[in-house]
């Protein structure tokens, strides 16, 4: 659902930063638009000659007829030849003008879409938690489309209209400056009314776009949750709801049509009202013999020809308002500053990864985290995880375990306090450096719709690509694909897939079981050969035996590096160096498994409870 706070109310004038952004896009492809404009003017100049040649020829034939003489056939032939030449020339110019201008529009569209995508990759987790996917996609696809039309068709119309106005007004001035001024007298009033139209167009277009986003979000959710829709047989309800949204979109469109419908004939009538003035005022000028009848007729003809560009002006305004409404919706995304960002250029510090001794010390200093809705997830946490150690973080749902580990790769930044890796505050590291050192398997496994292998190699491929662009040659990786697959406990699953590692996993990994998805995400994290490995509850859907085997393997390959496990199961925790117990966002206990058991605190109680439950299960 579109965030209502993102919809500016009743504002249609565009702010300067927006205009600057728009101008920058124009400037990027200025040659397209400028060369296109030159060809457009050329087209108009050439094409305008043709009617006068035709008119001249007809006049000649007429004169010849009334004079009873034979027509000058050479003159006619010459004219005919000229018409053909002009037509060919105009066609060439017309083709080039359209190609240049419209290509410019497509280039703007292309660049804008890339800009949005690039910006989206910089926005943090919290942004995605409050935005609907369908809405973001709709903005990038539909709204950009309207900006493209603004640049392409919009500039074409602007040039055409300007040229037409210029030519016709010049001709009118030549006949009678006085009458010209009179016929233009109502224009100020027109402009005021036009502003009203423009305002209405803008706000109504925004509503249409918001409704389209709404439809997109709704359909997107429905299609993603199709298994629920089917299992509960709620197709009728889903259809009814979609129809409601479609009706709202229809209403928004019709309220826009009301303005557009009123605007086009209004623009058309401006020309006609000019004729009316010429008729009333110019008529009396003729009667008073200030201008000749011939001049009057000529002038009326010009006024009629003014009708078309005026109408086109209406089009331009409509395109402009629609484009700007779309552009504004894009700017809402583009102007969202990522709160998690790289340190200022040149101030980034390096992470010493290859030095002697264990690496990957993580220190939380007075770290607090409060969510947007006011929930306190972490409350002044002070905690140092020794380099090279393996720790488990346990605690109830909502104790802050995931929040704590999400701070390390900066999926979120703490509201207060500092997180350090090997003594360096992580805000002073570039995100690439920091995240490059971390292997992370999230709570909810997410896979991309490609092969299993490519999913596992996801991080590695990125790393290789960026190393290649920097011209670096990376030393041999510490872990082969086979190793990662084996350690993650996937080896036995692979033969069951129709094409082994080359099997496509479908959207979000839909064709894999929950446990398989989790193990693929573990292999993906492992393959990076990370200094810090974080498994955020990613063994939850894995059975206890496999879990134990994975942990055993991990402790071997993660020697000298840091591993953090968020878990709810305690029976394998004697394998870890230290257990950290969180409660209500605070560290309440920490120490080796056995020690904590001996102390008989919260942890001991939790372990005992689980043991009892398991015993109960097995009795």
């Amino acid at each position, binding site marked *: 659902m579109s965030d209502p706070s993102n919809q500016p109310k009743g504002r249609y004038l565009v702010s300067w930063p927006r205009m600057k952004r728009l101008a920058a896009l124009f400037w990027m492809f200025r040659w397209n638009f400028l060369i296109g404009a030159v060809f457009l003017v050329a087209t108009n100049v050439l094409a305008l000659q043709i009617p006068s040649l035709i008119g001249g020829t*007809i006049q000649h034939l007429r004169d010849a007829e009334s004079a009873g003489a034979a*027509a000058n056939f050479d003159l006619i032939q010459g004219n005919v030849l000229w018409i053909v030449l002009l037509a060919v020339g105009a066609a060439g110019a017309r083709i080039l003008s359209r190609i240049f201008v419209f290509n410019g529009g497509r280039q703007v569209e292309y660049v804008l*879409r890339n800009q949005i995508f*690039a910006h989206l990759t910089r926005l943090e*987790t919290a942004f995605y938690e409050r935005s609907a996917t369908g809405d973001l996609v709709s903005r990038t696809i539909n709204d950009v489309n309207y900006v493209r039309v603004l640049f392409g068709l919009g500039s074409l119309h602007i040039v055409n209209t300007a040229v037409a106005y210029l030519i016709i007004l010049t001709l009118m001035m030549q006949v009678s400056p006085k009458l010209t001024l009179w016929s233009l007298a109502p224009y100020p009033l027109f402009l005021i009314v036009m502003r009203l139209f423009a305002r209405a167009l803008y706000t109504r277009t925004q509503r249409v776009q918001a409704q389209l986003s709404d439809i997109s979000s709704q359909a997107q959710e429905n299609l993603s949750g*199709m298994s629920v*829709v089917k299992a509960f047989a709620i197709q009728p309800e889903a259809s009814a709801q979609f129809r409601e949204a479609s009706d709202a979109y229809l209403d928004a469109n019709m309220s826009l049509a009301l303005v557009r419908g009123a605007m086009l004939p209004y623009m058309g009538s401006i020309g006609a009202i000019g004729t009316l003035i010429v008729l009333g005022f110019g008529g009396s000028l003729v009667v008073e013999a200030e201008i000749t009848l011939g001049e009057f007729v000529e002038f009326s003809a010009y006024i009629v020809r003014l009708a078309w560009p005026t109408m086109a002006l209406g089009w331009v305004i409509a395109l402009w308002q629609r484009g700007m409404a779309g552009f504004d919706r894009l700017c809402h995304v583009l102007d969202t500053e990522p709160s998690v960002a790289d340190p200022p250029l040149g101030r980034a510090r390096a992470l010493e990864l290859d030095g002697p001794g264990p690496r990957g010390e993580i220190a939380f200093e007075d770290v607090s985290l409060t969510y947007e809705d006011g929930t306190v997830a972490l409350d002044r946490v002070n905690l140092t995880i020794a380099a090279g150690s393996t720790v488990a973080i346990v605690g109830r749902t909502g*104790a802050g375990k995931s929040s704590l580990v999400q701070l390390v790769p900066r999926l979120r930044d703490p509201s207060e306090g500092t997180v350090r890796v090997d003594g360096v505050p992580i805000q002073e590291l570039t995100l690439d450096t920091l995240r490059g050192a971390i292997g992370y398997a999230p709570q909810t496994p997410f896979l991309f719709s490609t092969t299993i292998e490519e999913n596992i190699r996801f991080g590695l491929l*990125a790393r290789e690509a960026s190393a290649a662009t920097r011209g670096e040659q990376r030393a041999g990786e510490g872990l082969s694909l086979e190793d990662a697959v084996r350690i993650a406990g996937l080896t036995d699953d692979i033969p069951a897939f129709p094409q082994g590692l080359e099997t496509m996993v479908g959207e979000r990994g839909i064709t894999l079981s929950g446990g398989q998805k989790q193990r693929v995400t573990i292999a993906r994290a492992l393959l990076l050969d990370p200094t810090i490995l974080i498994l955020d509850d990613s063994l939850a859907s894995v059975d206890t035996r496999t879990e134990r085997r994975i942990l055993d393997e991990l402790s071997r390959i993660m020697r000298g590096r840091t591993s953090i496990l968020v878990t709810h199961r305690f029976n394998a925790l004697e394998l870890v160096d230290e257990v950290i117990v969180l409660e209500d966002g605070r560290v309440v206990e920490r120490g080796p498994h056995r020690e904590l058991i001996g102390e008989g605190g919260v942890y001991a109680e939790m372990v005992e409870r689980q043991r009892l439950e398991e015993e109960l299960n097995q009795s």
Partner: protein
Amino acid sequence: MSDDARQDQQPDAKGDDAAREDKRASFHEEKRLGKVVDRDLVRRLAGYVRPYLWLFIGCLVLLPMASAMTLFQPHLLQLAIDDHLIPKQLDGLGWIVGAFAVTLVLEYGLRFAQFYLMQLAGQQALRDLRCDVFDHLQRLRLSFFHKNPVGRLMTRLTTDIDSLQEALSSGMITIIGDLITLSVIVVILLVKSWQLALVTFAVVPILLGATFLFRSLMRSAYREARVKIARLNANLQEAVTGMGIIQLFAHEERSLREYDTINQEHRDAAIALIRYDAILYAFVEMISSIAIAGLIWYGAGQTVQDVVTLGVLVAFIEYVEKFFVPIRDLSQKYTLFQSAMASSERLFQLLDTDEVIEEAPEALPIEAIGERIEFRDVWFAYNDDNWILRGVSFTIERGQKVALVGHTGAGKTTIISLLTRMYDIQQGEILIDGVDVRRYRLHDLRKLFAVVLQDSFLFTGTIRDNITLRVDSVTDADVEHAAEIVGLGRLLGRYEDSYAHPVKERGNNLSVGERQLVTFTRALAHRPSVLILDEATANVDTETEALIQEATEAMMAEQTSVVIAHRLSTIQKADAIVVLHKGQVAEVGSHQELIERGGLYHTLVKLQYTAP
């Protein structure tokens, strides 16, 4: 899939990366279309217009009226000149100015009404089409959604339908108007001078030839652009949902590059279109000028030979200019038409996808399960001979709690999908009260069951919406009753707004445990005959785990249930355990019986549920 297999057999033909790229593309890319006949597409589109035919007819009536007003204005001007300006007679000029103003107002009103009616008709037709596509999607089999990324389907519902908008609203009316104007002018030309008319019409074959040539070029370019935009959409959609992973693995640059490639392809497809459009447009303009030039040249010669009079020639040239106005207009609309056809092809192709579960012609209603559900020698494969179930037979008596156990891939999830008839089986029978499930109404059949899946999918809305799924028959009492059994109330106590607490996309703002309890409550509140539970393995803390376990037991105590069980305690409480192994039923019995038998179940329990 068959394409992929072929590629695997020829590993040398392409490099590894290229082959993988192809495979990826085949998921995102769409199949090329076979030959589609425009007439069929137009006929089907017309079907959507038919309910609003009167609105269209209204437009067609208003259009000439508005034009008449426009034509009337020069006449008034003429009147003013002849009657008042030439005799220098100002009296009565006011009347003419007044009449002129009236025609203006009328024209304004008529054009407005015409535009509005046209939009109303077009937009409504599109709304219907959009809803039809959506409804059709609702009926498609689940496997369809495994093959088609959401982003692509979204493109159908939004971009493709919107590209029909102009064709359906402004396009159709102007095309009809233009055709009428054109035929009137043709008649006038023929009457004036058939010789000159034939000379003029000589260009028509050239125009037709050009449009015919451009038709296939433009159509394939439009198709290309449509395919690319759908791919762009699907890529973007996936990137947005998986952005966290992209960032964690510093994959931004590479993802951007992938997106950029598709974006470029889309731009290039669009640029090809611009070229064709520009050439066609300019060509028609050029031909019209050349035709007039030819007419003058030929006509002047004819007047010399006195075949046609000069007056006729002069009038003729003026008419020929008018002849080309609708032609130019039509060539513009031709581009629009090609675009609309490219979209319609995709839309109707989707509407023609018959991957649906067929309902029997006179399907039986069913409200509740009377006695039992029976699987009788069921064979099932998702594709071809890859049998997932091989002769599975077992029964679920009313009131029984049946647990399905077995390794991953043993066929547990498949059995659940078959119960709710997400797929049809190839051999054997699934019977409810002795009647094959295929003979029941699909909607009724699915209403018998409530399914809790491992992945607790929540929709944007409130917690209440997610429980009722906006089904009216689920009352507040049902919700509260279910919530009480599940123990959701205790969790909701944390939120001031309780059931009205907002749920973000996919339930992102709720914890895993909360999400699971909401889906439990959802299942119970729908008062099913049979509860189906695909037990999610513990990914919650002991306390929530206990809560969920309690909830599970409470739910199962209420009614007939089928559980894919992972917790020993759940299995132990089952009346019957069906042990599956490689698509066959290995053992059936109660926990105690099976343990005593010391078979597969015994090993399974030992392997999975005891710490080493």
